[in-house]
């Protein structure tokens, strides 16, 4: 590896969303050298994606702080391996870079949970956040009919965003029950800022039908999506549409934390009160410690950044804000827990694993994730189970396996560079892609 490809920092932050930005800013403000590594083409994470116009004030403020704090940013770089503690390897479009750190902060965010239903592999069936990301990346949706479905507060935010961009929203289908959402709204009373957000959103959504206990039963179309059949409190209805934006709340990205040996419990990265994981010097902030949104991510990021810079006293000042944000996270989790009826939505020939095209009936024969992987290649494709893993966890209560490097498919050349390092762990080439 060439000298230019080597980078050394006091603190390396993986992930440039709210948690990563807050962590980097707080660490850099104390004089530490800080580098952010992010897979996306620009900073902001999914929620502040394409940080430019129509951004919330918080996003603008934090990005400004980041600029003046002299943080080095490396976008379009995905971390795939840690050959030894203190060194991470990341792959870009044309190169591999080495990042050396004294302290590491993982702020790897979350992804949408996708659940299989007949026709969900048709083009123009996307995640809810997925379609929003596409619109933020230039997709025109003016005049398009978009059914929004799945679960979680993201659905309403996406519906409102799409309507602002000219889409017609025939319906928003939320799988959670009305009763469950009412309890959640009641819990918001204790948090005026969240309540104000909810009220503002309700106003924006005026006129869009919002169905609870509702979910997609099937998407139809020959080459591309044409319509979707939904179940709405037990009744079915078919709606013509151009896009189906469907995601069932979020699942944390914990693969890198697992690779580094950080302890997980119930699928979440375990941290102490200063956001340190079970691995000394490795911190974790934001969604991987529990899905909770921007406020939680910012508070945890700040605490991690300050602690990594040995400012524990200052970090403790954020404990109250974090506690409040975590209460919200717990309520969120309860309100949007998945209803068991969703398990009977896939048909025998519905694909569960989209990379390897493994059907529901073939996966169902197995008793564990490992057995399904070995016999059907379910979860063995390029996404490495990031889509079908959370789906099978819900459908069959399977627990995912341990994580091995590389955590994502990389070019053979990148692997070759990583093993030509002076010190390295054992590296298995997974799958036959790329």
């Amino acid at each position, binding site marked *: 590896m060439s000298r230019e490809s080597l980078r050394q920092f006091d603190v390396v932050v993986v992930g440039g969303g709210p948690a990563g930005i807050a962590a980097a800013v707080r660490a850099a403000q104390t004089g530490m050298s800080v580098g952010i590594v992010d897979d996306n083409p620009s900073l902001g994470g999914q929620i502040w994606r*394409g940080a430019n116009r129509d951004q919330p004030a918080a996003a603008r403020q934090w990005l400004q702080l980041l600029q003046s704090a002299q943080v080095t940013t490396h976008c*379009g770089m995905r971390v795939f391996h840690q050959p030894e503690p203190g060194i991470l390897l990341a792959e870009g479009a044309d190169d591999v870079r080495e990042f050396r750190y004294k302290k590491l902060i993982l702020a790897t965010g979350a992804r949408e949970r996708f659940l299989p239903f007949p026709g969900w592999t048709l083009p123009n069936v996307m995640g809810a956040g997925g379609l929003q990301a596409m619109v933020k990346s*230039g997709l025109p949706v003016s005049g398009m009919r978009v059914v929004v479905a799945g679960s979680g507060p993201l659905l309403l935010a996406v519906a409102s965003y799409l309507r602002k961009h000219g889409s017609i929203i025939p319906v928003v289908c939320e799988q959670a029950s009305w009763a469950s959402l009412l309890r959640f709204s009641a819990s918001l009373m204790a948090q005026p800022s969240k309540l104000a957000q909810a009220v503002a959103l309700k106003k924006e959504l005026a006129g869009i039908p919002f169905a609870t206990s509702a979910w997609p039963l099937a998407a139809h179309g020959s080459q591309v999506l044409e319509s979707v059949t939904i179940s709405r409190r037990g009744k079915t209805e078919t709606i013509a549409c151009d896009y189906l934006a469907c995601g069932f709340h979020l699942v944390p*990205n914990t693969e890198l934390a697992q690779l580094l040996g950080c302890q997980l419990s119930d699928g979440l990265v375990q941290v102490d009160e200063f956001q340190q994981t079970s691995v000394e010097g490795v911190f974790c902030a934001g969604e991987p410690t529990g899905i909770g949104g921007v406020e939680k991510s910012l508070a945890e990021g700040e605490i991690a950044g300050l602690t990594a810079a040995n400012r524990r006293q200052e970090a403790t000042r954020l404990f109250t804000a974090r506690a409040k944000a975590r209460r919200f996270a717990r309520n969120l989790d309860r309100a949007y827990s998945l209803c068991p009826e969703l398990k009977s939505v896939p048909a025998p020939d519905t694909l569960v694993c989209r990379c390897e095209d493994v059907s529901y009936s073939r996966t169902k024969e197995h008793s564990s994730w490992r057995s399904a992987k070995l016999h059907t290649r379910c979860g063995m494709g390029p996404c490495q189970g990031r889509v079908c893993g959370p789906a099978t966890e819900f459908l069959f209560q399977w627990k995912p396996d341990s994580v091995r490097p590389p955590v994502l498919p990389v070019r053979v050349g990148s692997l070759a560079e990583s093993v030509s390092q002076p010190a390295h762990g054992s590296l298995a080439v997974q799958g036959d892609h790329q």
Partner: protein
Amino acid sequence: MPEPLILKVNGAELSVLQGTTVAVALTIARQACRISVSTQPRGPLCGMGICFECRATINGKRHRRSCQIPCEAGMDVSTDE
């Protein structure tokens, strides 16, 4: 307002605005990003580089996640994988 740029999608010229990702260009051009192992057409799902459904050949490099790559003038994108 971003400037328009022209790229090639499966041989045909397409004009998009600066900042548009390749996955979006393919969706605008109504081209499936890839054909699955059981020959189904596939398009973007997650929009954030996780699902690998949007991979396409960009400037001769195969298996690129098109949702993570902004379009560039003169770029050559093909979905013949």
